[in-house]
């Protein structure tokens, strides 16, 4: 209905293979990004930014990272919580042990460390597949959870194992107000989404998807499984690491290993399942869904005037979560992203049926 595609023809391959070939899509995404940078910080309350928008963006970055591995390369990973933790503690150590480093460099180094560890834990994926691989990543999860608790060097010998993020400042600007934090996280999220889109539409992305769809055929036409899987693990862990650093520095402020436990891994996995495996948009939709649902559940009873004890609310949260996961897997295994693209398809051939 909103699309006017007549007359949008392509005269070169670059415009034919761009991220948003249809003008209406390009303009609407541009509008959203501009609004996110201008209107949202102006109108949104501090509470909304601090407790919803910032975590949503950071988790979206982590979801993009995990989607590289699970959605695009088909390697199941239950260890994303640990990789976030590596990002957080690497950033912490770089910040404290190497003073004067620019914040962005710290994040990139944190991502790099996480990527290296990711490659290490990617090696088993060459011989084992499916659930067995899930166990290898689970081993990473527990190993690092234990390591950050027990090996004091990482936490700079703080007694309780919890650490405090250093004051954030970048190019001389101190980042303390919610607005500043929001801008930092938003700009990183936009850059990450763009990089993700570029990686998945090039030949690297295709080799990942080939491994995911039929790894035997991929190997025979010349794709090195070693290179493809390890690059997926590296890129995935890199972005999850950055998300971990952001989560610790910007959102939590001070944290201990428990903040990155197995439930975080499950949460990220749910985000990309519900959001849509193999879709960058799916990461944002999934992150938004998983963030907003618990908040909605807490507010909802109040709306209908029934008072519920916090305990029952948290149980209710579990129940509804469980039901929704199963519902989505039955209704649309490809998640919100597929529903979104079907909706878009309907609009494009409106008024005719899909």
């Amino acid at each position: 209905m909103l699309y006017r595609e007549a007359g949008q023809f392509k005269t070169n391959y670059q415009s034919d293979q761009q991220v948003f070939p249809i003008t209406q899509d390009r303009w609407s995404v541009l509008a959203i990004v501009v609004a996110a940078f201008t209107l949202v910080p102006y109108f949104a309350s501090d509470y909304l930014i601090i407790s919803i928008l910032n975590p949503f963006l950071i988790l979206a970055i982590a979801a993009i990272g995990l989607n590289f591995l699970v959605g695009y390369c088909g390697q199941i990973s239950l260890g994303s919580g640990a990789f976030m933790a590596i990002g957080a503690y690497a950033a912490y150590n770089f910040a404290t042990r190497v003073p004067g480093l620019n914040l962005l460099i710290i994040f990139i180094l944190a991502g790099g460390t996480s990527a290296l560890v990711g490659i290490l834990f990617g090696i088993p994926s060459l011989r084992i597949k499916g659930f067995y691989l899930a166990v290898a990543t689970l081993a990473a999860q527990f190993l690092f959870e234990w390591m950050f608790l027990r090996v004091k060097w990482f936490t700079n010998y703080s007694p309780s194992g919890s650490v405090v993020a250093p004051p954030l400042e970048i190019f001389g600007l101190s980042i303390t107000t919610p607005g500043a934090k929001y801008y930092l996280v938003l700009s990183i999220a936009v850059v990450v989404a763009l990089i993700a889109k570029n990686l998945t539409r090039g030949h690297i992305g295709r080799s990942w998807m080939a491994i995911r769809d039929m790894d035997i055929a991929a190997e025979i036409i010349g794709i090195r499984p070693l290179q493809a899987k390890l690059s997926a693990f590296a890129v995935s862990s890199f972005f999850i690491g950055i998300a971990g650093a952001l989560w610790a520095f910007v959102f939590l402020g001070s944290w201990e290993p428990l903040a990155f436990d197995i439930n975080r891994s499950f949460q990220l996995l749910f985000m990309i399942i519900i959001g849509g495996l193999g879709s960058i948009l799916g990461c944002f939709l999934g992150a938004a869904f998983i963030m907003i649902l618990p908040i909605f559940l807490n507010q909802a009873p109040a709306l209908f005037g029934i008072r519920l004890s916090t305990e029952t609310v948290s149980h209710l949260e579990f129940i509804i979560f469980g039901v929704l996961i199963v519902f989505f897997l039955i209704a649309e295994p490809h998640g919100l992203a597929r529903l979104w693209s079907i909706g878009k398809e309907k609009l494009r051939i409106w008024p005719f049926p899909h």
Partner: protein
Amino acid sequence: MANDAAKSDDTFPKLLIRNASRFGARPAYREKEYGIWQTYDWAESLANVRAIACGLAALGAKRGDKIALIGDNRPRLYWTIAAIQAIGGIAVPVYQDSVAEEVQYVLDHAEVGIAYAEDQEQVDKLLGNMARCPKLKTVIYEDGRGMRHYDQPFLFSLAKVEELGRKYEAEHPGFFDAEVAKGKGADISVIPYTSGTTGRPKGVMLSFDNMIETSRRSVAFDKLSENEDILAYLPPAWIGQHYFSFGQAMVAGFCVNCPESGATVQTDLKEIGPTFYFAPPRVWEGLLTQVMVRIEDASWLKRKMFAYFIDHARRVGLGILEGRSVGLLDRALYALGELLVYGPLKNVLGLSRVRIAYTAGEALGPDIFNFYRAIGINLKQLYGQTESTVYLTIQSDGDVRGDTVGPPAPDMEVRIDEAGEVLYRGPGVFVGYYKNDEATRSTKTADGWVHTGDAGVFTTDGHLKIIDRVKDVGRLKNGALFAPKYIENKLKFFPFILEAVAHGADQDAVAAFINIDLNAVGNWAERQGISYSSYQDLASKPEVYGLIRGNIEQVNRDLAQDPDLAGSQIKRFLILHKELDPDDGEITRTRKVRRNVVAERYAPLIEALYSDKKEIDVQAKVTFEDGRTGTIKARLHLGDAATFPAAMKKAG
């Protein structure tokens, strides 16, 4: 047009040189290939034409030589036409889907020396005819796919011709410009062969003046500029396509877009979104049927919304399109309709950028015509023929009606002689029929008037209304006027009827053959839960007879309103067991019925219609897709249709 300016651009090569200097980097031709629209600007086009022209000269082409072109719409085809004309040659376009002997007749009749064929399929047709075309010495091909082992000496790829051309021009500097300068308005620019419904096709000689003078007027009439985009998808040999994508394109300087292949025209139309669009009636009818069929499957809500807004558009749309005053509420509702239905519909059909659209060749049903205008497509009627270089009568933006073909085109005089035949005179009048003076004399009178062969009448507000072919207009036994095409067009306005042939001359009543539209009737049958196996099976169903009878009786009611046509209401009809097919010679390539062939081949059926038989067995020879022939046996029902008393003769 100032007189001296005429000298510098009175031929297409000169126009091309002017365009290359004036528009330079603007796109002149686009072609969908390898997934994207390959674009060639005016400067590039001129360079290629220069190389081809010199190449043709290198191959021995002389001024006045006829060079045939057989192929689909491709930038290289149009460059070759311009190149031929640059060295004084005459282009002879041939239909690309005509069979070998049709090609042979044209090549031999036009004494063609060199032929341009697009690909292996067309080259094979030419090679097959070499023996029977003594004058054909050289064949040029564009797409060499599959011809690697063709080693005939007289076969050249277009690339080789361009290479020869560049070498030739190096040896004869200034040759190209000198040749172009020799060209003048009166020279013959192109000889298209009419797909005559009667007898052998005739070559219509059209001079540069014919083409350029009429193009200048029509470009000015519709205010076409170099920013237009058109889609060249109809056969290049048809005068209409040649006029739009060569005549007007060179004059106005707009871009000609060539689709990837015949199968992808619909998607290419949507991608390009042309601003100036021409389509024969069957395309407009087919599109509307397709829309109605697809909407049937939509959800209840969408169907209701669609019906409501289309109904609103039918009431208010024409007023808005023609700028008449319309109530504020209606205008607001129409705007909402534009957002919800008309805009998306035009977008899906690829017509949202259309500024001017034409239909011609056959009559188009008024309600189909008004449907497109109602949703905001500026569709207009025009009437013309090859001999008049297309534009004879044309409707202007403010003065459009569904049932007429409009007032005479600029500087074109049109009159009706006592026999009711339409005659015209003006700049578009053709030079004559090639090597057929006898036919030229019978068509062109001494003082320059041309017989169209169509019967027509002028309405009170100066619009011409075409009734039928003069020779087909007959009288019933009781003297009532019988115009078969007029009746057939009314029948074809119903989506279920694809083709109709009316009989009645010198009979006491009118009877009709009906061809059902498999797509529309098949879909209707599914909805009614009627199962059918083949076209022939569906055509013999009693329910389908009932459906068609309803349509015929509706036509009879319309005919009853018109006093002098009330007598020719349809009393008897039958549904043919097979579609009339160009391969069987029953209709022309552009789907015009060949009456004499049909009358002679189906004589027993006509006879049965005028007897009181209820059924008749029939055996018909059919040629299949790959040329094999077979016979079909079928039992046809003969149906009766109710007729209505004539209305009182209306005043005036």
